[in-house]
């Protein structure tokens, strides 16, 4: 293929993706006043029954898109893996890594019942704050294990409520453990809204939905299921996607929608983003600016081919989530 033509096509794809993201930001900005009229706090959790389902990536990227659209957003990481610090670039930043406290201040706040004790990382992006997790988050799980079941939700929620008040937060996004673990269950209890990423394999089905539904029913959670979406599905598997979507729609009925957005799969993008601390949008922008075909510049950095598609998908997902959030449920 003619090299120039190939480059131009790449540029156009990036431009279209950029347009999709810009449209998404505009739509989110349009919805913001309505969101601010909803009861506060507004705590969203991406729930899944197993690891690797897309909770952390969705949290970081949807959180970043919301913040980019002007939503004062707080990401709270309740996973000992501390993915959010890496995904949002704090762990890689020597200027800010010193602020990471392994989740100690959040643990202290929950134990003391005093949200003022939390030291969030302010403005890891404009309007995006982070309560990071770490080794101390394991102790949070231990502490909550020793807490009466009825008290667990309140113990965490009271801290979140205070953080929302202190920092004037529009939306809180929780990154949790799988729902089968205590911190995952507590996240379900502490949330107001749930979104469920789902892969097409049987394990995701069993753990993704049935486990969450049982836990939800038994724990007394009362967050609203905003919808579900297919995560990290190979773009070529359109038939499998269509079958899964149909099955999902049958399953959910009128309870909640299946979002149109499908988050595309890319090992390379996932690896690069977690190493560099760039969000999908930033990664796509870097790709558009820096990527060159090998025959043009062999030394140019390499990016995932579908970085622009991933960026657009997260923007669309954020719009669908917020649109559903403001809709009055039937």
């Amino acid at each position, binding site marked *: 293929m003619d090299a120039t033509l190939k480059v131009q096509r790449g540029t156009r794809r990036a431009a279209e993706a950029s347009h999709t993201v810009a449209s998404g930001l505009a739509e989110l900005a349009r919805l913001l006043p309505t969101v601010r009229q909803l009861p506060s706090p507004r705590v969203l959790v991406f729930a899944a029954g197993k690891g690797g389902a897309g909770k952390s990536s969705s949290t970081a990227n949807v959180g970043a898109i919301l913040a980019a659209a002007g939503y004062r957003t707080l990401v709270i990481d309740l996973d000992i893996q501390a993915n959010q610090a890496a995904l949002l670039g704090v762990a890689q930043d020597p200027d800010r890594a010193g602020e990471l406290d392994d989740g100690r201040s959040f643990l202290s706040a929950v134990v003391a019942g005093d949200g003022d004790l939390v030291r969030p990382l302010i403005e890891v992006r404009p309007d995006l704050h982070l309560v990071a997790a770490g080794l101390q988050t394991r102790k949070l799980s231990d502490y909550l294990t020793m807490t009466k079941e009825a008290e667990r939700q309140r113990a965490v929620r009271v801290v979140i409520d205070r953080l929302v008040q202190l920092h004037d937060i529009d939306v809180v996004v929780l990154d949790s453990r799988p729902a089968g673990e205590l911190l995952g269950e507590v996240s379900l209890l502490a949330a107001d809204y749930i979104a469920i990423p789902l892969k097409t394999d049987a394990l995701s089905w069993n753990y993704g939905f049935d486990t969450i539904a049982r836990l939800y029913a038994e724990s007394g*959670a009362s967050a609203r299921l905003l919808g579900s979406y297919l995560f990290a599905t190979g773009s070529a598997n359109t038939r499998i996607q269509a079958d899964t979507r149909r099955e999902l729609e049958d399953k959910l009925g009128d309870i909640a929608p299946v979002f149109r957005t499908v988050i595309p799969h890319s090992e390379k993008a996932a690896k690069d983003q977690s190493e560099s*601390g760039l969000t999908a949008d930033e990664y796509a*922008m870097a790709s558009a600016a820096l990527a060159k075909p090998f025959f043009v510049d062999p030394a140019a950095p390499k*990016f995932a081919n579908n970085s622009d598609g991933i960026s657009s998908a997260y923007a669309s997902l954020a719009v669908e989530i917020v649109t559903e959030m403001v809709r009055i449920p039937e």
Partner: protein
Amino acid sequence: MSADPLSAFRRGNDRDRDRRAEHVTPDTGTDEVDVDGVLERRRSELLQSTLTAPPPTTSEPVSTPPGEREPQVANIVTTTPSAPTRPSPPAAHPLGPPPTSNAAGRVRRPAVYNVSKEVAHGLRVLRGAREQDYPLLIATALDEAAAKVPVAPEAIRKRNRFSGERITVELDPSVREAIKTAAQERNLNASAFVTQLLEQWIPSRVLRGQLHL
């Protein structure tokens, strides 16, 4: 697979309706939403948020130790445009006083600065993000970082471009002189000085983030 286990989720819908019913909606005063205004404000906030690097705290000259490489090649290449351009009238701007020496008829020549690879990457990323802000980004970077180089965005035209690791910026002569003077005070040539300024200004995460991609 049965849909029964999922029926518990209806509880969430019920609770959401109840919460809304109990909630007193704050009066926002208007039904109209100024999306453009929000985005414009947002864009401006984004721009400002990148300006986190403090200005240099020392006024002592910075020199490169003997035998050590300066940050990339350090020379200014100037070229004469094909036809003289008439500068726009200066305008007041909070970033600094308007250029004073762009007298009508003076030939404005673009200056070419060679910057480090990391800075070039960082600028490309930022330019990719908000191309329309690029002249303002450069102007603000110089203004914020140098303190001694007051730059109005009008002084830097939109014909900035990259070629390899060279930034070509069309500067008002007064700005160019200011950069040159500030660089001389630090025993640096203009390219090294501009590199240093921009390294301090571009968010370190952006600079570093590109290195291992």
